[in-house]
Protein backbone atom coordinates (compact mmCIF):
# COMPACT_ATOMS: atom_id res chain seq x y z
CA UNK A 1 0.00 0.00 0.00
CA UNK A 2 2.80 2.43 0.90
CA UNK A 3 4.45 1.71 -2.40
CA UNK A 4 1.34 2.56 -4.29
CA UNK A 5 0.93 5.64 -2.17
CA UNK A 6 4.42 7.01 -2.75
CA UNK A 7 4.11 6.29 -6.42
CA UNK A 8 0.92 8.28 -6.60
CA UNK A 9 2.52 11.13 -4.68
CA UNK A 10 5.46 11.02 -7.05
CA UNK A 11 3.10 11.16 -9.99
CA UNK A 12 1.23 14.03 -8.46
CA UNK A 13 4.48 15.86 -7.80
CA UNK A 14 5.63 15.28 -11.34
CA UNK A 15 2.32 16.54 -12.61
CA UNK A 16 2.46 19.68 -10.51
CA UNK A 17 6.07 20.29 -11.52
CA UNK A 18 5.01 20.02 -15.14
CA UNK A 19 2.23 22.46 -14.44
CA UNK A 20 4.58 25.01 -12.96
CA UNK A 21 6.92 25.00 -15.92
CA UNK A 22 4.26 24.81 -18.60
CA UNK A 23 1.42 27.26 -19.02
CA UNK A 24 -1.35 26.87 -16.44
CA UNK A 25 -3.71 24.10 -17.39
CA UNK A 26 -7.10 24.98 -18.71
CA UNK A 27 -10.12 22.74 -18.92
CA UNK A 28 -9.86 20.43 -21.88
CA UNK A 29 -6.17 19.73 -21.47
CA UNK A 30 -6.73 16.79 -19.25
CA UNK A 31 -8.56 13.62 -20.08
CA UNK A 32 -8.96 10.48 -18.01
CA UNK A 33 -6.53 7.83 -19.15
CA UNK A 34 -8.31 4.95 -17.53
CA UNK A 35 -11.86 4.22 -16.41
CA UNK A 36 -12.98 6.53 -13.63
CA UNK A 37 -14.17 5.01 -10.38
CA UNK A 38 -17.37 6.51 -9.06
CA UNK A 39 -17.51 5.60 -5.39
CA UNK A 40 -21.04 5.54 -4.01
CA UNK A 41 -21.44 6.21 -0.29
CA UNK A 42 -24.38 3.80 -0.07
CA UNK A 43 -25.20 0.20 -0.83
CA UNK A 44 -26.67 -1.17 -4.02
CA UNK A 45 -30.28 -0.35 -4.71
CA UNK A 46 -30.78 2.64 -2.43
CA UNK A 47 -31.81 6.10 -3.56
CA UNK A 48 -28.23 7.37 -3.72
CA UNK A 49 -27.15 4.34 -5.71
CA UNK A 50 -29.99 4.66 -8.15
CA UNK A 51 -29.19 8.31 -8.75
CA UNK A 52 -25.49 7.64 -9.23
CA UNK A 53 -26.29 4.95 -11.77
CA UNK A 54 -28.66 7.33 -13.52
CA UNK A 55 -25.76 9.79 -13.85
CA UNK A 56 -23.57 7.02 -15.19
CA UNK A 57 -26.19 6.12 -17.78
CA UNK A 58 -26.67 9.69 -18.92
CA UNK A 59 -22.92 10.22 -19.13
CA UNK A 60 -22.61 7.10 -21.23
CA UNK A 61 -25.56 7.88 -23.43
CA UNK A 62 -24.60 11.48 -24.11
CA UNK A 63 -20.94 10.52 -24.40
CA UNK A 64 -19.86 13.07 -21.83
CA UNK A 65 -16.67 11.27 -20.80
CA UNK A 66 -13.92 9.72 -22.85
CA UNK A 67 -13.54 6.79 -20.46
CA UNK A 68 -16.28 4.79 -18.79
CA UNK A 69 -17.41 5.86 -15.33
CA UNK A 70 -17.62 2.77 -13.14
CA UNK A 71 -19.84 2.88 -10.06
CA UNK A 72 -18.44 1.10 -7.00
CA UNK A 73 -20.59 0.76 -3.89
CA UNK A 74 -18.85 1.35 -0.59
CA UNK A 75 -21.78 1.82 1.71
CA UNK A 76 -20.32 0.23 4.84
CA UNK A 77 -20.71 2.08 8.14
CA UNK A 78 -23.06 4.75 6.74
CA UNK A 79 -20.40 5.79 4.27
CA UNK A 80 -17.44 5.58 6.67
CA UNK A 81 -15.91 3.01 4.38
CA UNK A 82 -16.21 5.27 1.34
CA UNK A 83 -14.77 8.26 3.20
CA UNK A 84 -11.76 6.30 4.39
CA UNK A 85 -11.29 4.96 0.88
CA UNK A 86 -11.32 8.44 -0.65
CA UNK A 87 -8.83 9.62 1.96
CA UNK A 88 -6.42 6.86 0.89
CA UNK A 89 -6.79 7.90 -2.75
CA UNK A 90 -5.07 11.23 -2.24
CA UNK A 91 -3.83 12.69 -5.52
CA UNK A 92 -5.67 10.15 -7.64
CA UNK A 93 -7.20 11.74 -10.72
CA UNK A 94 -9.46 8.82 -11.55
CA UNK A 95 -11.73 8.66 -8.52
CA UNK A 96 -14.83 10.68 -7.77
CA UNK A 97 -17.39 10.07 -5.06
CA UNK A 98 -21.15 10.48 -5.06
CA UNK A 99 -22.16 11.86 -1.67
CA UNK A 100 -25.26 12.35 0.39
CA UNK A 101 -25.75 13.86 3.80
CA UNK A 102 -23.82 11.11 5.55
CA UNK A 103 -20.84 12.97 4.05
CA UNK A 104 -21.09 15.22 7.10
CA UNK A 105 -22.99 13.19 9.62
CA UNK A 106 -20.82 10.08 9.55
CA UNK A 107 -17.54 11.83 10.46
CA UNK A 108 -19.44 13.84 13.07
CA UNK A 109 -20.98 10.82 14.75
CA UNK A 110 -17.99 8.53 14.85
CA UNK A 111 -14.34 9.43 14.69
CA UNK A 112 -13.07 7.82 11.51
CA UNK A 113 -10.08 10.12 10.98
CA UNK A 114 -11.52 11.89 7.97
CA UNK A 115 -11.82 15.64 7.58
CA UNK A 116 -14.11 16.47 4.69
CA UNK A 117 -12.51 19.89 4.32
CA UNK A 118 -9.55 18.15 2.71
CA UNK A 119 -11.53 16.67 -0.15
CA UNK A 120 -11.91 18.50 -3.43
CA UNK A 121 -15.48 19.59 -4.14
CA UNK A 122 -16.61 18.93 -7.73
CA UNK A 123 -20.29 19.58 -8.26
CA UNK A 124 -23.61 19.57 -6.47
CA UNK A 125 -26.23 18.10 -8.74
CA UNK A 126 -29.41 18.37 -6.72
CA UNK A 127 -31.13 18.77 -3.41
CA UNK A 128 -33.57 16.00 -2.62
CA UNK A 129 -36.61 16.99 -0.63
CA UNK A 130 -38.47 15.54 2.35
CA UNK A 131 -42.19 15.30 2.91
CA UNK A 132 -44.20 14.15 5.91
CA UNK A 133 -46.43 11.22 4.90
CA UNK A 134 -49.26 9.29 6.49
CA UNK A 135 -51.29 6.34 5.26
CA UNK A 136 -54.22 7.43 3.08
CA UNK A 137 -56.58 5.46 5.33
CA UNK A 138 -55.73 7.53 8.37
CA UNK A 139 -57.86 10.46 9.35
CA UNK A 140 -54.99 12.87 9.47
CA UNK A 141 -55.34 15.60 6.86
CA UNK A 142 -53.37 18.49 8.25
CA UNK A 143 -50.28 19.12 10.29
CA UNK A 144 -52.42 20.01 13.31
CA UNK A 145 -54.20 16.67 13.09
CA UNK A 146 -50.83 15.00 12.96
CA UNK A 147 -49.47 16.75 16.04
CA UNK A 148 -52.67 16.06 17.94
CA UNK A 149 -52.61 12.39 16.98
CA UNK A 150 -48.98 11.98 18.04
CA UNK A 151 -49.67 13.66 21.35
CA UNK A 152 -52.73 11.48 21.93
CA UNK A 153 -50.73 8.30 21.32
CA UNK A 154 -48.55 8.99 24.35
CA UNK A 155 -45.22 8.18 22.69
CA UNK A 156 -46.43 5.11 20.89
CA UNK A 157 -46.71 6.84 17.53
CA UNK A 158 -44.53 4.87 15.10
CA UNK A 159 -42.39 6.95 12.81
CA UNK A 160 -40.50 4.89 10.24
CA UNK A 161 -37.27 5.95 8.63
CA UNK A 162 -33.80 4.92 7.53
CA UNK A 163 -31.08 3.99 10.04
CA UNK A 164 -30.65 5.94 13.26
CA UNK A 165 -28.39 8.94 12.74
CA UNK A 166 -29.28 9.16 9.08
CA UNK A 167 -31.36 11.86 7.41
CA UNK A 168 -34.82 10.55 8.27
CA UNK A 169 -33.99 10.33 11.95
CA UNK A 170 -32.63 13.89 11.91
CA UNK A 171 -35.83 15.17 10.32
CA UNK A 172 -37.80 13.26 12.94
CA UNK A 173 -35.71 14.79 15.69
CA UNK A 174 -36.41 18.22 14.24
CA UNK A 175 -40.13 17.47 14.28
CA UNK A 176 -40.00 16.24 17.86
CA UNK A 177 -38.20 19.35 18.98
CA UNK A 178 -40.37 21.81 17.07
CA UNK A 179 -43.71 20.38 18.19
CA UNK A 180 -42.58 19.11 21.56
CA UNK A 181 -43.75 15.59 20.76
CA UNK A 182 -42.28 12.17 21.32
CA UNK A 183 -42.45 9.38 18.73
CA UNK A 184 -41.14 5.83 18.56
CA UNK A 185 -38.62 5.83 15.76
CA UNK A 186 -38.43 2.51 13.87
CA UNK A 187 -35.38 2.24 11.61
CA UNK A 188 -35.61 0.31 8.32
CA UNK A 189 -33.06 -0.61 5.76
CA UNK A 190 -34.03 1.72 2.95
CA UNK A 191 -36.52 4.31 1.85
CA UNK A 192 -38.51 1.81 -0.21
CA UNK A 193 -38.88 -0.46 2.80
CA UNK A 194 -40.11 2.47 4.86
CA UNK A 195 -42.65 3.46 2.22
CA UNK A 196 -44.06 -0.05 2.00
CA UNK A 197 -44.40 -0.38 5.77
CA UNK A 198 -46.36 2.85 5.87
CA UNK A 199 -48.80 1.66 3.22
CA UNK A 200 -49.00 -1.76 4.86
CA UNK A 201 -50.02 -0.10 8.11
CA UNK A 202 -47.03 -1.27 10.14
CA UNK A 203 -45.96 2.28 10.95
CA UNK A 204 -47.97 5.49 11.33
CA UNK A 205 -45.96 8.10 9.46
CA UNK A 206 -42.74 8.66 7.51
CA UNK A 207 -40.59 11.46 6.20
CA UNK A 208 -39.82 9.77 2.85
CA UNK A 209 -38.34 11.52 -0.17
CA UNK A 210 -41.07 12.11 -2.76
CA UNK A 211 -39.48 9.66 -5.19
CA UNK A 212 -39.86 6.86 -2.66
CA UNK A 213 -43.58 7.43 -2.09
CA UNK A 214 -44.55 8.54 -5.58
CA UNK A 215 -45.84 5.15 -6.70
CA UNK A 216 -48.09 4.80 -3.66
CA UNK A 217 -49.16 8.42 -3.80
CA UNK A 218 -50.26 8.02 -7.42
CA UNK A 219 -52.27 4.98 -6.39
CA UNK A 220 -53.92 6.96 -3.62
CA UNK A 221 -52.41 4.92 -0.80
CA UNK A 222 -50.42 7.58 0.99
CA UNK A 223 -51.01 11.20 1.80
CA UNK A 224 -48.50 14.06 2.01
CA UNK A 225 -49.09 16.33 5.02
CA UNK A 226 -46.40 18.97 4.71
CA UNK A 227 -43.08 19.43 2.93
CA UNK A 228 -39.74 20.35 4.48
CA UNK A 229 -38.93 22.69 1.60
CA UNK A 230 -38.75 26.47 1.31
CA UNK A 231 -41.39 26.44 -1.45
CA UNK A 232 -44.22 24.11 -2.47
CA UNK A 233 -43.26 21.19 -4.69
CA UNK A 234 -44.60 21.16 -8.23
CA UNK A 235 -45.63 17.53 -7.90
CA UNK A 236 -47.73 18.21 -4.78
CA UNK A 237 -49.19 21.68 -5.34
CA UNK A 238 -51.77 21.27 -2.57
CA UNK A 239 -49.33 20.27 0.11
CA UNK A 240 -48.22 23.19 2.27
CA UNK A 241 -44.64 23.70 3.36
CA UNK A 242 -43.70 23.66 7.01
CA UNK A 243 -42.58 27.26 6.68
CA UNK A 244 -46.01 28.30 5.42
CA UNK A 245 -47.54 26.68 8.46
CA UNK A 246 -45.35 28.77 10.69
CA UNK A 247 -42.63 26.26 11.50
CA UNK A 248 -39.19 26.96 10.13
CA UNK A 249 -38.38 23.36 9.33
CA UNK A 250 -36.36 23.02 6.15
CA UNK A 251 -34.20 20.04 5.43
CA UNK A 252 -32.81 18.62 2.25
CA UNK A 253 -30.51 15.90 1.07
CA UNK A 254 -27.63 17.01 -1.10
CA UNK A 255 -26.54 14.89 -4.04
CA UNK A 256 -23.00 15.98 -4.87
CA UNK A 257 -19.72 14.75 -6.20
CA UNK A 258 -16.37 15.21 -4.51
CA UNK A 259 -12.85 14.16 -5.42
CA UNK A 260 -9.87 13.13 -3.30
CA UNK A 261 -7.50 15.64 -1.78
CA UNK A 262 -4.88 16.94 -4.17
CA UNK A 263 -6.58 16.06 -7.44
CA UNK A 264 -4.98 17.82 -10.40
CA UNK A 265 -6.91 21.09 -10.98
CA UNK A 266 -7.14 20.24 -14.68
CA UNK A 267 -8.83 16.97 -13.78
CA UNK A 268 -11.21 18.77 -11.43
CA UNK A 269 -12.03 21.12 -14.28
CA UNK A 270 -12.68 18.16 -16.57
CA UNK A 271 -15.14 16.57 -14.16
CA UNK A 272 -16.81 19.90 -13.41
CA UNK A 273 -17.42 20.45 -17.12
CA UNK A 274 -18.71 16.92 -17.42
CA UNK A 275 -21.26 17.46 -14.65
CA UNK A 276 -22.21 20.83 -16.07
CA UNK A 277 -23.12 19.15 -19.34
CA UNK A 278 -24.93 16.49 -17.39
CA UNK A 279 -26.88 19.15 -15.58
CA UNK A 280 -27.95 20.64 -18.91
CA UNK A 281 -29.06 17.31 -20.33
CA UNK A 282 -32.71 16.81 -21.05
CA UNK A 283 -32.93 13.48 -19.21
CA UNK A 284 -31.68 15.00 -16.01
CA UNK A 285 -33.99 17.97 -16.19
CA UNK A 286 -37.05 15.78 -16.76
CA UNK A 287 -35.99 13.44 -14.01
CA UNK A 288 -35.62 16.19 -11.43
CA UNK A 289 -39.04 17.54 -12.30
CA UNK A 290 -40.78 14.20 -12.05
CA UNK A 291 -39.13 13.24 -8.79
CA UNK A 292 -39.40 16.65 -7.10
CA UNK A 293 -35.67 17.15 -6.92
CA UNK A 294 -34.26 20.64 -6.78
CA UNK A 295 -31.52 20.76 -9.47
CA UNK A 296 -29.50 23.46 -7.76
CA UNK A 297 -26.13 23.20 -9.49
CA UNK A 298 -23.13 24.39 -7.50
CA UNK A 299 -19.37 23.97 -7.95
CA UNK A 300 -15.96 24.93 -6.63
CA UNK A 301 -15.47 27.15 -3.60
CA UNK A 302 -19.17 27.86 -3.26
CA UNK A 303 -19.78 24.16 -2.90
CA UNK A 304 -17.05 23.83 -0.29
CA UNK A 305 -18.56 26.73 1.66
CA UNK A 306 -21.94 25.00 1.43
CA UNK A 307 -20.46 21.74 2.74
CA UNK A 308 -18.83 23.42 5.71
CA UNK A 309 -21.96 25.37 6.50
CA UNK A 310 -24.07 22.22 6.36
CA UNK A 311 -21.57 20.39 8.50
CA UNK A 312 -21.84 22.90 11.31
CA UNK A 313 -25.64 22.82 11.00
CA UNK A 314 -25.60 19.05 11.32
CA UNK A 315 -23.23 19.22 14.25
CA UNK A 316 -25.81 21.36 16.08
CA UNK A 317 -28.61 19.04 15.05
CA UNK A 318 -26.80 15.96 16.24
CA UNK A 319 -25.85 17.46 19.55
CA UNK A 320 -29.42 18.60 20.19
CA UNK A 321 -30.55 15.09 19.31
CA UNK A 322 -28.20 13.55 21.83
CA UNK A 323 -29.40 15.91 24.52
CA UNK A 324 -32.94 14.83 23.76
CA UNK A 325 -32.43 11.11 24.13
Amino acid sequence: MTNKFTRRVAMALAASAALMTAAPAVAGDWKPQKPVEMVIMAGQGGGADRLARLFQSIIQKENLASMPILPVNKGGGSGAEALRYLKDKEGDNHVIMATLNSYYTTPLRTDIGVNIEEFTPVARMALDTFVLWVNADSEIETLDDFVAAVKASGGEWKMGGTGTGQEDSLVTAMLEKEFDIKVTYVPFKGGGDVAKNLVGGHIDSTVNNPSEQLGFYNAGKSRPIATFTPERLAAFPDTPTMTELGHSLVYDMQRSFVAPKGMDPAAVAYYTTMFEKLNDSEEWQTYTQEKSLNPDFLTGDDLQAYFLDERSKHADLLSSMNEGS
Partner: protein
Amino acid sequence: MLLADRMIAVFIMVLSVYFMWHAIALPIGWNGMTGGPGGGAFPFWLSAIMFVCAGGVLTRSIRGKSSYSGAGTFFDPETLSWVISVTVALVVTIALMPWAGTYIALPLFMFWYLKIFGKHGWVLTASLCLTTPVFLFFFFEVTLKILLPKGLTEPFFIPLYARFF
Protein backbone atom coordinates in the same frame (compact mmCIF):
# COMPACT_ATOMS: atom_id res chain seq x y z
CA MET B 1 -6.63 -36.01 16.69
CA LEU B 2 -7.97 -35.32 20.14
CA LEU B 3 -5.37 -32.64 20.60
CA ALA B 4 -6.56 -30.90 17.45
CA ASP B 5 -10.17 -31.15 18.60
CA ARG B 6 -9.26 -29.55 21.91
CA MET B 7 -7.15 -26.86 20.28
CA ILE B 8 -9.99 -25.87 17.99
CA ALA B 9 -12.38 -25.75 20.95
CA VAL B 10 -9.98 -23.49 22.82
CA PHE B 11 -9.59 -21.35 19.72
CA ILE B 12 -13.36 -20.91 19.50
CA MET B 13 -13.52 -19.99 23.16
CA VAL B 14 -10.85 -17.34 22.67
CA LEU B 15 -12.66 -16.09 19.58
CA SER B 16 -15.95 -15.78 21.43
CA VAL B 17 -14.30 -13.81 24.22
CA TYR B 18 -12.83 -11.52 21.58
CA PHE B 19 -16.27 -11.06 20.00
CA MET B 20 -17.81 -10.36 23.39
CA TRP B 21 -15.14 -7.80 24.14
CA HIS B 22 -16.01 -6.00 20.90
CA ALA B 23 -19.74 -6.32 21.49
CA ILE B 24 -19.76 -4.61 24.90
CA ALA B 25 -18.94 -1.33 23.14
CA LEU B 26 -22.70 -1.19 22.54
CA PRO B 27 -25.47 -1.86 25.08
CA ILE B 28 -25.97 -5.59 25.49
CA GLY B 29 -28.97 -5.56 27.76
CA TRP B 30 -32.69 -5.46 27.13
CA ASN B 31 -34.20 -2.01 26.60
CA GLY B 32 -30.87 -0.43 25.85
CA MET B 33 -31.30 2.74 23.87
CA THR B 34 -34.57 1.61 22.36
CA GLY B 35 -37.23 -0.99 23.04
CA GLY B 36 -35.87 -4.50 22.89
CA PRO B 37 -32.26 -5.65 22.92
CA GLY B 38 -29.41 -3.19 22.43
CA GLY B 39 -26.99 -3.12 19.54
CA GLY B 40 -24.44 -5.36 21.21
CA ALA B 41 -26.90 -7.90 22.57
CA PHE B 42 -26.99 -10.25 19.61
CA PRO B 43 -23.25 -10.60 19.11
CA PHE B 44 -22.61 -10.74 22.85
CA TRP B 45 -25.06 -13.43 23.85
CA LEU B 46 -24.48 -15.50 20.72
CA SER B 47 -20.77 -15.46 21.48
CA ALA B 48 -21.56 -16.41 25.03
CA ILE B 49 -23.49 -19.48 23.83
CA MET B 50 -20.61 -20.27 21.52
CA PHE B 51 -18.22 -20.05 24.46
CA VAL B 52 -20.31 -22.43 26.56
CA CYS B 53 -20.69 -24.95 23.75
CA ALA B 54 -17.01 -24.87 22.89
CA GLY B 55 -16.35 -25.40 26.59
CA GLY B 56 -18.66 -28.39 26.37
CA VAL B 57 -16.73 -29.81 23.44
CA LEU B 58 -13.51 -29.33 25.36
CA THR B 59 -14.66 -31.03 28.57
CA ARG B 60 -16.23 -33.83 26.57
CA SER B 61 -12.97 -34.40 24.81
CA ILE B 62 -10.95 -34.33 28.05
CA ARG B 63 -13.33 -36.76 29.73
CA GLY B 64 -12.88 -39.04 26.75
CA LYS B 65 -16.55 -39.12 25.88
CA SER B 66 -16.11 -37.57 22.50
CA SER B 67 -18.17 -38.98 19.68
CA TYR B 68 -15.19 -38.03 17.64
CA SER B 69 -13.29 -41.05 16.38
CA GLY B 70 -9.91 -40.65 17.95
CA ALA B 71 -8.21 -42.93 15.48
CA GLY B 72 -5.42 -41.62 13.31
CA THR B 73 -3.73 -38.30 13.43
CA PHE B 74 -5.23 -34.99 12.43
CA PHE B 75 -2.48 -34.38 9.90
CA ASP B 76 -0.02 -36.69 8.35
CA PRO B 77 3.21 -34.83 7.64
CA GLU B 78 2.84 -34.97 3.88
CA THR B 79 -0.68 -33.53 3.87
CA LEU B 80 0.41 -30.84 6.25
CA SER B 81 3.23 -29.77 3.97
CA TRP B 82 0.87 -29.64 0.97
CA VAL B 83 -1.74 -27.64 2.76
CA ILE B 84 0.82 -25.23 4.15
CA SER B 85 2.51 -24.73 0.80
CA VAL B 86 -0.78 -23.99 -1.00
CA THR B 87 -1.81 -21.59 1.77
CA VAL B 88 1.53 -19.79 1.68
CA ALA B 89 1.33 -19.55 -2.10
CA LEU B 90 -2.12 -17.99 -1.82
CA VAL B 91 -0.97 -15.53 0.81
CA VAL B 92 2.04 -14.49 -1.26
CA THR B 93 -0.12 -14.08 -4.35
CA ILE B 94 -2.65 -11.90 -2.59
CA ALA B 95 0.05 -9.81 -0.95
CA LEU B 96 1.57 -9.31 -4.37
CA MET B 97 -1.67 -8.31 -6.10
CA PRO B 98 -2.04 -4.66 -5.04
CA TRP B 99 1.66 -4.09 -5.50
CA ALA B 100 2.77 -5.97 -8.60
CA GLY B 101 -0.70 -6.20 -10.08
CA THR B 102 -3.11 -9.01 -10.75
CA TYR B 103 -1.59 -9.81 -14.10
CA ILE B 104 1.79 -10.58 -12.56
CA ALA B 105 0.66 -12.20 -9.32
CA LEU B 106 -1.88 -14.64 -10.74
CA PRO B 107 0.28 -16.06 -13.57
CA LEU B 108 3.09 -16.52 -11.05
CA PHE B 109 0.72 -18.41 -8.77
CA MET B 110 -0.49 -20.57 -11.64
CA PHE B 111 3.06 -21.24 -12.70
CA TRP B 112 3.94 -22.38 -9.22
CA TYR B 113 0.83 -24.48 -8.87
CA LEU B 114 1.01 -26.15 -12.26
CA LYS B 115 4.72 -26.54 -12.82
CA ILE B 116 6.19 -26.90 -9.36
CA PHE B 117 3.33 -28.21 -7.24
CA GLY B 118 1.42 -30.12 -9.90
CA LYS B 119 4.48 -31.15 -11.96
CA HIS B 120 2.79 -30.54 -15.28
CA GLY B 121 4.60 -30.03 -18.57
CA TRP B 122 5.84 -26.75 -19.92
CA VAL B 123 3.31 -26.55 -22.73
CA LEU B 124 0.29 -26.88 -20.47
CA THR B 125 1.74 -24.54 -17.84
CA ALA B 126 2.74 -21.86 -20.33
CA SER B 127 -0.52 -21.94 -22.24
CA LEU B 128 -2.64 -21.69 -19.10
CA CYS B 129 -0.47 -18.99 -17.55
CA LEU B 130 -0.85 -16.92 -20.70
CA THR B 131 -4.50 -17.53 -21.54
CA THR B 132 -5.90 -17.05 -18.03
CA PRO B 133 -4.83 -13.39 -17.67
CA VAL B 134 -6.09 -12.64 -21.17
CA PHE B 135 -9.41 -14.23 -20.30
CA LEU B 136 -9.58 -12.35 -17.00
CA PHE B 137 -8.85 -9.07 -18.72
CA PHE B 138 -11.52 -9.50 -21.35
CA PHE B 139 -14.12 -11.06 -19.10
CA PHE B 140 -13.79 -8.90 -16.01
CA GLU B 141 -12.39 -5.61 -17.24
CA VAL B 142 -13.62 -5.23 -20.80
CA THR B 143 -16.98 -6.99 -20.51
CA LEU B 144 -18.02 -6.55 -16.89
CA LYS B 145 -16.10 -3.29 -16.30
CA ILE B 146 -14.65 -4.53 -13.03
CA LEU B 147 -11.11 -3.21 -12.75
CA LEU B 148 -8.63 -5.55 -11.11
CA PRO B 149 -5.69 -4.19 -9.08
CA LYS B 150 -2.76 -3.22 -11.30
CA GLY B 151 -0.20 -1.76 -8.90
CA LEU B 152 3.07 -0.93 -10.61
CA THR B 153 1.89 -2.30 -13.93
CA GLU B 154 -0.80 0.37 -14.26
CA PRO B 155 1.01 2.48 -16.92
CA PHE B 156 1.21 -0.53 -19.23
CA PHE B 157 -2.55 -0.75 -19.29
CA ILE B 158 -3.25 2.81 -20.38
CA PRO B 159 -2.96 2.00 -24.11
CA LEU B 160 -5.16 -1.07 -23.53
CA TYR B 161 -7.81 1.07 -21.83
CA ALA B 162 -7.69 3.53 -24.70
CA ARG B 163 -8.14 0.68 -27.14
CA PHE B 164 -10.90 -1.31 -25.43
CA PHE B 165 -13.05 1.15 -23.55
